[in-house]
C-alpha cells in the first residue's frame, strides 16, 4: 500500500514529522517497507565532463569522447555534436536511459566500429528547448562540482510503502491508515465534509441481483452520470496516481482508482451507452466468456459472480471489468458501480482464472459494506468537478442486510493475555478512536465492531487491538520458567544426533540436500517404492520426493568430482519417502566415498576406496551407537543399486526383512548411466527407524566385570574351503565349538590361486583359547584343536591345510 504524507494529511491533522509517522506506523503493526521518492525516468541523466575529445577513426564528423561521470573510470562515448570538446561539462545518459524526446531506450552500441557506452544529450533530446545543434553546455561555476550527480532534481514527494497484513483491509485505504494513527495518538482524524451534491433524475438502468445459491454479490449501488467530458486528469490527480506507482489513464479511471486508494472503496465505471438495457448480477454458466480490460479473453466456469446485461457478461464483479463497456475519452454517459462482493467468491474466481487486480485484492480481504454510498458520492463529486455532467439519484440494491458484530469484552482478558494492565478509561478511548461503539454493562464492555473491520470477531481480537495501539514495548519481560516437563530428546532423537556426529568424525562432510529430486535419478534408487510426484514442482528436475537418500547425494558427488575434487566423503542424514501420506518416511544416513585412500602419500601405499572401508565406517558407527557386536549378522542381501557381488547388509536376524544398514560398491550400471568419473565409489546407509530402542538404560546394561588371569594360548589354522563359503560362518563354527574357552577368532589371511584348487580358497584364522578356571595343559589344547578341525571339516566341508 503506497501513499504520500501529503495524502495522509488529507485525513489526519498531525504535528508529527515524517520520521515520527514512520515509527508510529511500524509500532502499530503497519510495517513500513520503504520511504523514498518514487523513481523517475529522468533519474539516470547525470552531469558529466568530457576529458578528451578526439576524432573517430572511421568517421570525420564523429568524435570519440572520454567522459568523466564521477566514477573511477572514464566512459567512452561516440558523439556527433560539433561542440564536443575537452573540458566541456554536459549531460550524459547511460545505456538503459529513455530519451524523453523520442522515448527510445539507449543500449550499448557500435557506431562505425567503435563501441559507445551511452550518449551525450542535446537540450532538444531532453525536451528542454528546441536547440538540437549541439550537446548541452553546462556552466562551469555551477556544475563543476556536480560531476556524477543527477541532472534533474527529483521533485516528487516521498512515498510511504506499507506491507499490510491480510487481516487489515481497512488499511488498504489512506483513511484507514489515518484512523489507526489517530487512535495511537499521532493526530486527529479529520471529519469528512458533508456533501452538497445535487442529484438530478433517477438511475434508470434497472439493476437486479439474482437470488442464487452461489450469488457472490449482496449489495450493488450505482448512479448515472450524464454528459461528461472525459479527459486527461489534472496534475494533482496525476501526481497522486503516479505516487501509487501507477500510470494515469483518463480522468474517470483515475478518479475511481483514487477513491479506491483513498477510502478503500473499489468502484467501476461503465460506459452507460454500451449497456444493453439492464444490469443483471448473477452467477456465470460454464463456457461463457468476455474480454477483460487486461485485453485477455476469459472463459468462465459455473458460479462465478458476473455483472451482465442482456447481451452477456460485462465483467467479473469485484475483479475486472470488460472492454465492451469500458470508458474511453469519447464516453459521454457513465454508470458508476459501488458494490459488495463476498470474499470467498472473489477468491475462488480469481484463483481459478489467475487474475490479480487491486479491486480483487481488496474485496477478497473484505470491503466495508457500509461504504457503498460514500464511494459513489466521493467519485461523482470529482467526476462532476473535472468532467462535468449530471448525477442521478443513487440506486442501491441489496439481497442481504449488514449485521453489526457485537463482542462482549471482559477487560481482564487483556491483562491475562499481555501480563500488564491498561486503565478502562484508556482502553475505551483507544477502541472508540478505532471506530468501536462502546457501552458498559457492569465489568463487561459491549462493543459494536466497525463495519470496516471484518477481521474482528472475538474478544482476543480486541486484546490485540488494544495492545497494538498501546504499544508492545509495554509488555514486561518475565524471566523464563525453567521447569522441564520431559527429557529434551527421546531415544531416536539422541540416536540421530549421535550417529550424525559419529559418521562425521570418520571424515565425512555433512551436507543437506533437497527432499525432492529428479525422477530420472530417483528411478535408479527407488527399488519397489512408489514414485511420489510433486504436482507443482519448482523445476522439472526436482519433480519427485526422494525415495532414497542417494539420488541427490550422488548428483552432488558428481558435481564435486566435476569441480576437480578426487577424494570425496559426503553424508546426509534426513528423510527418505516411502509413500505420499504423512509419516510414510524413514530417517536415513546416506554416505558416499569416492577416490583413493592415501593418495600421494610418501609413506603409505595408495589404493582405491573399497567395500571394507565403508564396512568399517558403518560397523564402527553402529557399535558406537550402542549396537551389540554379537547382535548383528552380515548378509549379502542388498538393494539393486548396489554391486551385487560387492555389497552387504547389516541385519539383526538372518531372516529380518529390513537391514539396519547396507554398504558396498554402487552398481556399475548406475555409474555408467550418470557418467560419474572416479576411480572408486562406495556407499553406505543406515536406517535409524530399524534400530531398536533398548529397554534398559546403560547403567543397567553394564554386566558384571569378569576376567581370567590364567594363561591364554593362540593357535593358527588354515582351511581350504569352497570359494563361496562365508568367513562369518566359519568363524561362527569355530566359536560354537566351545564358547567358554574360545575367546576370539580372527581371520588373518584369505587367498585363492597358487596351490589352491579351482573353486576353493584358503582362510587362515587365529584362535585365542583361555579358560576361566585353570591353565590349560598341552593335552587340553590338543583336544580343543582337534575339535575345531573336526567341527569345521564336518560342518563346512573344509579341509585343514597341512
Amino acid at each position, binding site marked *: 500500500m503506497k501513499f504520500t504524507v501529503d495524502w495522509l494529511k488529507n485525513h489526519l491533522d498531525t504535528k508529527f514529522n515524517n520520521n515520527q509517522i514512520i515509527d508510529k506506523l511500524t509500532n502499530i503493526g503497519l510495517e513500513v517497507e520503504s520511504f523514498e521518492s518514487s523513481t523517475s525516468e529522468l533519474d539516470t541523466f547525470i552531469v558529466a565532463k568530457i576529458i578528451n575529445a578526439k576524432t573517430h577513426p572511421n568517421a570525420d564528423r564523429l568524435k570519440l569522447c572520454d567522459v568523466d561521470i564521477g566514477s573511477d573510470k572514464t566512459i567512452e562515448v561516440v558523439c556527433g555534436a560539433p561542440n564536443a570538446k575537452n573540458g566541456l561539462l554536459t549531460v550524459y545518459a547511460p545505456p538503459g536511459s529513455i530519451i524523453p524526446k523520442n522515448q527510445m531506450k539507449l543500449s550499448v552500441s557500435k557506431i562505425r566500429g567503435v563501441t559507445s557506452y551511452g550518449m551525450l544529450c542535446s537540450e532538444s533530446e531532453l525536451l528542454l528547448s528546441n536547440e538540437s545543434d549541439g550537446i548541452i553546455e553546462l556552466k562551469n561555476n555551477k556544475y563543476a562540482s556536480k560531476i556524477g550527480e543527477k541532472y534533474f532534481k527529483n521533485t516528487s514527494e516521498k512515498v510511504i510503502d506499507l506491507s499490510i497484513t491480510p487481516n487489515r483491509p481497512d488499511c488498504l485505504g489512506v483513511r484507514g491508515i489515518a484512523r489507526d494513527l489517530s487512535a495511537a495518538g499521532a493526530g486527529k482524524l479529520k471529519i469528512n465534509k458533508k456533501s452538497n451534491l445535487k442529484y438530478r433524475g433517477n438511475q434508470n438502468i434497472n439493476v437486479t441481483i439474482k437470488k442464487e445459491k452461489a450469488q457472490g454479490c449482496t449489495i450493488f449501488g450505482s448512479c448515472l452520470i450524464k454528459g461528461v467530458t472525459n479527459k486527461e486528469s489534472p496534475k494533482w490527480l496525476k501526481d497522486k496516481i503516479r505516487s501509487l506507482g501507477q500510470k494515469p489513464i483518463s480522468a474517470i479511471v483515475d478518479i475511481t482508482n483514487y477513491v479506491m486508494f483513498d477510502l478503500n472503496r473499489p468502484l467501476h465505471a461503465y460506459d452507460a451507452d454500451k449497456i444493453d438495457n439492464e444490469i443483471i448480477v448473477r452467477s456465470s454458466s460454464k463456457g461463457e466468456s468476455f474480454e477483460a480490460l487486461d485485453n485477455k479473453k476469459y472463459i468462465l466456469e459455473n458460479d462465478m459472480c458476473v455483472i451482465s446485461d442482456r447481451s452477456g457478461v460485462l465483467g467479473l464483479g469485484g475483479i475486472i471489468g470488460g472492454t465492451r463497456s469500458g470508458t474511453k475519452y469519447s464516453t459521454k454517459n457513465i454508470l458508476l458501480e459501488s458494490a459488495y462482493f463476498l470474499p470467498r467468491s472473489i477468491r475462488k474466481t480469481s484463483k481459478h482464472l489467475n487474475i490479480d487486480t487491486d479491486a480483487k485484492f481488496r474485496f477478497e480481504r473484505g470491503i466495508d459494506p457500509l461504504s457503498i454510498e460514500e464511494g459513489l458520492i466521493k467519485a461523482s463529486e470529482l467526476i462532476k468537478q473535472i468532467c462535468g455532467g449530471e448525477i442521478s439519484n443513487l440506486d442501491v440494491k441489496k439481497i442481504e442486510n449488514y449485521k453489526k458484530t457485537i463482542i462482549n469484552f471482559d477487560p481482564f482478558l487483556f491483562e*491475562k493475555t499481555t501480563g500488564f494492565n491498561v486503565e478502562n478509561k484508556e482502553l475505551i478511548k483507544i477502541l472508540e478512536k478505532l471506530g468501536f461503539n462502546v457501552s458498559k454493562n457492569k465489568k463487561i464492555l459491549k462493543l459494536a465492531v466497525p463495519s470496516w473491520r471484518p477481521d474482528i470477531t472475538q474478544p*482476543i481480537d480486541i486484546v490485540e487491538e488494544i495492545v497494538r495501539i498501546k504499544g508492545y514495548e509495554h509488555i514486561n519481560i518475565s524471566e523464563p520458567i525453567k521447569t522441564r*516437563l520431559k527429557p529434551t530428546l527421546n531415544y531416536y532423537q539422541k540416536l540421530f544426533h549421535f550417529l550424525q556426529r559419529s559418521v562425521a568424525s570418520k571424515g565425512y562432510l555433512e551436507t543437506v540436500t533437497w527432499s525432492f529430486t529428479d525422477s530420472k535419478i530417483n528411478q535408479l534408487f527407488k527399488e519397489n517404492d512408489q514414485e511420489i510426484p510433486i504436482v507443482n514442482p519448482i523445476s522439472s528436475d526436482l519433480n519427485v*520426493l526422494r525415495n532414497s537418500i542417494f539420488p541427490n547425494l550422488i548428483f552432488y558427488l558428481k558435481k564435486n568430482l566435476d569441480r576437480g575434487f578426487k577424494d570425496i566423503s559426503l553424508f546426509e542424514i534426513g528423510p527418505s519417502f516411502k509413500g505420499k501420506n504423512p509419516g510414510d518416511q524413514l530417517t536415513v544416513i546416506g554416505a558416499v566415498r569416492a577416490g583413493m585412500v592415501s593418495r600421494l602419500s610418501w609413506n603409505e601405499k595408495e589404493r582405491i576406496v573399497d567395500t571394507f572401508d565403508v564396512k568399517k565406517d558403518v560397523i564402527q558407527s553402529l557399535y558406537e551407537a550402542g549396537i551389540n557386536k554379537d547382535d548383528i549378522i552380515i548378509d549379502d542381501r542388498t538393494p539393486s543399486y548396489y554391486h551385487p557381488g560387492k555389497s552387504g547388509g547389516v541385519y539383526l536376524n538372518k531372516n529380518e526383512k529390513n537391514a539396519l544398514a547396507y554398504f558396498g560398491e554402487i552398481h556399475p550400471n548406475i555409474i555408467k548411466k550418470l557418467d560419474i568419473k572416479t576411480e572408486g565409489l562406495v556407499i553406505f546407509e543406515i536406517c535409524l527407524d530399524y534400530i531398536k530402542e533398548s529397554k534398559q538404560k546403560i547403567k543397567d546394561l553394564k554386566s558384571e566385570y569378569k576376567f581370567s588371569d590364567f594363561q591364554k594360548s593362540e593357535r593358527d589354522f588354515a582351511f581350504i574351503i569352497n570359494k563361496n563359503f562365508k568367513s562369518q560362518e566359519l568363524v561362527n563354527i569355530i566359536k560354537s565349538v566351545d564358547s567358554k574357552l574360545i575367546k576370539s577368532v580372527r581371520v588373518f589371511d584369505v587367498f585363492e590361486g597358487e596351490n589352491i584348487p579351482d573353486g576353493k580358497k584358503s582362510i587362515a584364522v587365529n584362535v585365542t583359547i583361555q579358560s576361566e578356571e585353570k591353565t590349560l595343559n598341552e593335552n587340553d589344547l590338543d583336544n580343543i584343536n582337534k575339535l575345531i578341525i573336526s567341527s569345521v571339516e564336518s560342518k563346512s566341508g573344509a579341509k585343514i591345510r597341512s
Partner: protein
Amino acid sequence: MSDIKKIKDDYIDKLNTENNIEKVNNIKSELFGKNGIVSNEFKKLGLISVEERKKLASDLNNIKDELQNKISIKIQEIETKEINLKLEKEKIDVTLPERNIEIGKIHPVSQVIDEISSIFSEIGFSVEEGPDVENEYNNFTALNTPDNHPARDMHDTFYLDNNKELLLRTHTSPVQVRTMLKGKPPFKIIAPGRTYRSDSDQTHAPMFHQVEGLHIDKNINMGHLKGCLNYFIKEFFEVDKIKMRFRPSHFPFTEPSAEVDIGYEIKNGKIVIGEGNKWLEILGCGMVHPNVLKNVNVNPSKYQGYAFGIGIDRLGMLKYGINDLRAFFETDYRWLSHFGFDPLDVPSNYRGLSR
C-alpha cells in the same frame, strides 16, 4: 702385593684408554674370571698367615672395588656413546607430512539446530518432530487458516495431489497441532525441521529450516513470550546485551501476533548483533489463537500460551556470516569444509554453545 698394585695401575691405565666394549669385557674376565688375576690373588689368601691375610684381603678388596667400579663406569660410558651415535644416525625428518588426516564436518544447519535445542533445553523445552508431508488440515485449517483465507497466499505450497489434500509442510507449526492432539496440556516444546515453499531466488530456497516453539499452560502470557525469546536470542548470539523490538503483525494462528526485530550494525563489513540502530526481522510469534486451541481439544478458557517460529538457516547466516542461503543446499565441498563444524564440537550448556 706391590705386584698386584702395579697390575691394578696398568689395568686402570688400560681401561682409561679403551673404547671397545668387547675389550673391556675381556679385561673384566682377565681380572675376575675363574682364573682371573684378581680371582687368583684371592685364592692365594688361604696360603698365608692370618695377620698377613687380614691386611692383604683388605687391600685386595679395595683393588677389586676400584677395578670393578672403573669397569662399570667404562661400560656405561661406552654404551652411552654408542647409543648417542646410533640415535644420531636414526634421526628422521619430522617435518615430513603425517599420515592422511580425514576431517569430517557437521553442516551449519545441523550445528545451529543443536545450538537452539541446547538453549531451549536449559529452560525446560523438549524436542518434538513431525512429518515433512502434511495434510491440508494440520498445515492450514487447524491453524485457523481456512481455505478462503488470503494468508494462504503467503505460503507458496508444494502439493502432492490435485485435491490439494497432501502437501509439503510450509512451516513447522503443524507439529504444534500434532503435539497437542496427542497429549494433554501443559505443553512446552520446540520442533525444528525441514519446511518447503515453492519459491526460489537469491534469498529464498524451496526448502529451508524452521524451529517452532510452543508453551501452553494455565498462566502463560506475552511477558513470558518476551522473556523466553529475549533469553534465547541473547544466548544464541552469545552477547551480553541484545536490542529486541516486538512489532505487531498478523499470523492466523496467533493473536495477538508479533514480529521480532533485533538491533544490529555493520562494523568493518561484518554484522554485529545487539548494537546499532538498524533493525533486522528474525522471527514471528504470538499468543496461540483460541480457535487453534479449540481445534486441538484444549480449552482456551483454562489454558493459554505462546508460539513462535524462527528461520534456522537465517539465524545461522547471521551468526556465522554466511551470505547466500542457496549455498546451504548446493553441497559444494569447499563451502562445506569452510562453514562446517567439527563433529566433536557439540553445543551444550556446560562446555559452551560454541568454541
